[in-house]
């Protein structure tokens, strides 16, 4: 059974139709890279997956539960879907360590001790142990994003959603973050990654989903998507621009 599935979701702001009916599924352990031109609806699609945006119509089914059902416990479902943002969105009023501890304690009701132990474990995994007690304002973008990933992973999510996680980073630190993400994928994490990093899509993703004009224009394994045989003119013109 698919872990996460959308059925015919649309999203409109007044007369502006951002998503025009998207059917999408992802199986456990799969890594999907979502690419496409700016303004094509990639981020909106991703934000519909955990209902940061409410679709205008359609269904989002996660782990067998319809997120748009009237009495669904959205907080509980969201706690099993990690999200990483382009702008990191660390809590500036807490140290790196506390950022990772807070949701564990507040949502999973872990004790302070357990939350701290788990946080330290993850800090080590993202090579940030030495910055545990630092406030976010003293961290570089790459460091912030690694903390943000650790914060999401700490919740033991079934799926991780990445919204252009490296777009706000200096080029020299992009790899630090991509390495962490590749490590997660290798550990078997299910991931949906909206990205402009074609190298990542090619090497790490199991599928590449191309969204353009509010629709999925292609859903292919990377080797097919990036091959010369793929003659879809919109994809060709997009790839020419970004590669």
């Amino acid at each position, binding site marked *: 059974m698919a872990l996460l599935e959308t059925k015919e979701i649309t999203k409109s702001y007044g007369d502006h139709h951002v998503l025009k009916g998207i059917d999408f599924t992802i199986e456990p352990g799969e890594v999907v890279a979502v690419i496409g031109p700016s303004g094509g609806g990639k981020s909106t699609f991703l934000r519909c997956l955990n209902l940061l945006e409410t679709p205008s119509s359609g269904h989002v089914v996660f782990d067998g539960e319809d997120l748009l059902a009237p009495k669904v416990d959205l*907080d509980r479902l*969201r706690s099993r879907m990690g*999200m990483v943002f382009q702008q990191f969105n660390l*809590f500036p009023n807490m140290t790196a360590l506390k950022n990772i501890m*807070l949701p564990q304690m*507040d*949502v999973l009701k872990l004790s302070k001790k357990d939350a701290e132990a788990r946080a330290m474990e993850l800090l080590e995994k993202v090579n940030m142990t030495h910055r545990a007690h630092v*406030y976010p*304002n003293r961290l570089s973008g790459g460091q912030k994003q690694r903390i943000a990933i650790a914060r*999401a992973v700490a919740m033991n999510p079934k799926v991780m959603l990445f919204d252009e996680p490296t777009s706000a980073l200096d080029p020299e630190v992009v790899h630090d973050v991509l390495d962490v993400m590749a490590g997660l994928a290798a550990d078997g994490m299910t991931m949906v990654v909206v990205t402009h990093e074609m190298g990542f899509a090619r090497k790490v993703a199991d599928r590449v989903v191309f969204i353009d004009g509010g629709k999925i224009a292609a859903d292919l394994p990377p080797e097919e998507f990036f091959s010369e045989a793929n003659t879809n003119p919109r994809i060709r013109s997009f790839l020419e621009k970004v590669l």
Partner: protein
Amino acid sequence: MRSRLTASPPQKRAHMKNRFSRFGWAATTAALLAALLGLAAPAAHAETTPATPTPSAGKMADLRAGKTTLKVGTDASFPPFEFTDANGTKIGFDIDVVKDLAAKAGIKNVEFVQMPFGNIVPALQANQIDVGASAIYISAERAKVVDFSEIYYPGGLGMFVSTANDTVKSLADLAGKKVAVQVGTKSVEWLRQNQPQAELVQVQTNDQMFSSVKLGQADAVVTGQPGGRYFIHEQGGLKQVGERLTNENYGFAFQKGDSDIREAFNAALKDMQSSGDFTKASAKWFGDESSTATGPAKERGIFNISSITNSWGPLMQGLGTTLQIIALSLALSLLFGMLGGFARLSHLRPIRWIGNVYVSVVRGTPFIVQLFFIYFALPQLGLQLSPMVAGILALGLYSGSYVTEIVRGAIQSVDKGQMEAARSCGMSSASALRHVIIPQAFLRMLPPLGNEFVSLTKNSALVSFVTISELFLVGQTIISRTFDALTVYVFIGLVYYILTNIIGMAANAIEKKMAVYI
């Protein structure tokens, strides 16, 4: 008492004093606000609401048994009728007479309540006091809303000018001249009718009238003779000219229909007059009628520290009251501000609407109107509050409307991504607010909150209008006795300056401590 009398010898016999319908505007304001809030109907029937019941015979029995205290409203800023000594104790002719009358009527406990003159009649109507004893003229206008005792003292208007002034000798000479009068007193209306060519200089307090002539801001004063003569005796520099202008009479005021207390007072008054006690009291405060002081101005330094040191006790008490008012209204302001701020951000339209109305009404009307509404108008709707409660509530409510906007603005200024990050971890919106949004918003609130609490501190001086003896009112009563406005206002200003700076520094210190992550 005895030592005070040596310091301030018995006054010359004075005849007149006159204040007209100063209560008028307070009552009108209250009624207007009530009407605005759609409460016009109950307000119009105020005299028959349960808040101002016709007192029963049980009231007098309770007073005689000492179960209740007779509350006497007075504006102790009108020597020699009622004023305060250096310790803040109320003294004067009216005070002595009322004490004697109450004793003769068998009333055990008497409490004098300080209030601006214009608030005495509304306070009677609102059942906040039992007797008004403040050199009140018996007038047909007032008799419509309160009952009066028999005449206990005759009075009337007199005219006073600087001793150096030889041009003003009669009422006719006031044409084209500036004449100082106390706002809301009968002098205002009387001059308009009898000397319309006089240019009126309306001042707030008794002492400001005389000061304005001494300082050259006005050419003459028209006021009650006792007050004028008392000033001449105390300070000199002024003289009375012309004949008495009016002949009017003082009475004690009672709640409408409160015949038990009124009759007890009238009987006691007769008793006092026939026993000679009344003549004694009169001689003690007004002295010999024949000698009229027109002495020269007394020598005084510009800055008299003794005006402060002699009244140190009452001033510190006033400061204590001010601090109490500030602390409590500040807490209330934060509470209202938090509630209001969240109401304005609510997803529920009716709650948002309540927040919007709160801010628009409370921020959109003068504080003094709200204060008077709470203290003078709410009793007509059945809600009677003590002065302290009314003052603190009014300040908290007023300041809270500004804090509402500070809270709303600060919360809205926190990046939207913060809420999204918290919610996408599965945190509830309440948790997100508590752990993530509010701590960040609070830091941003601190500078404007500091400002707002400085304002609140300064506004606290206004609650003196509802008879709370806080710092400013204590200062005013000292001025009414010493006529030393300069020293007292400088001192009081300095105290507020220090208070507001302490608040400012505290806000800065908290901000600095919290801002580790900025």
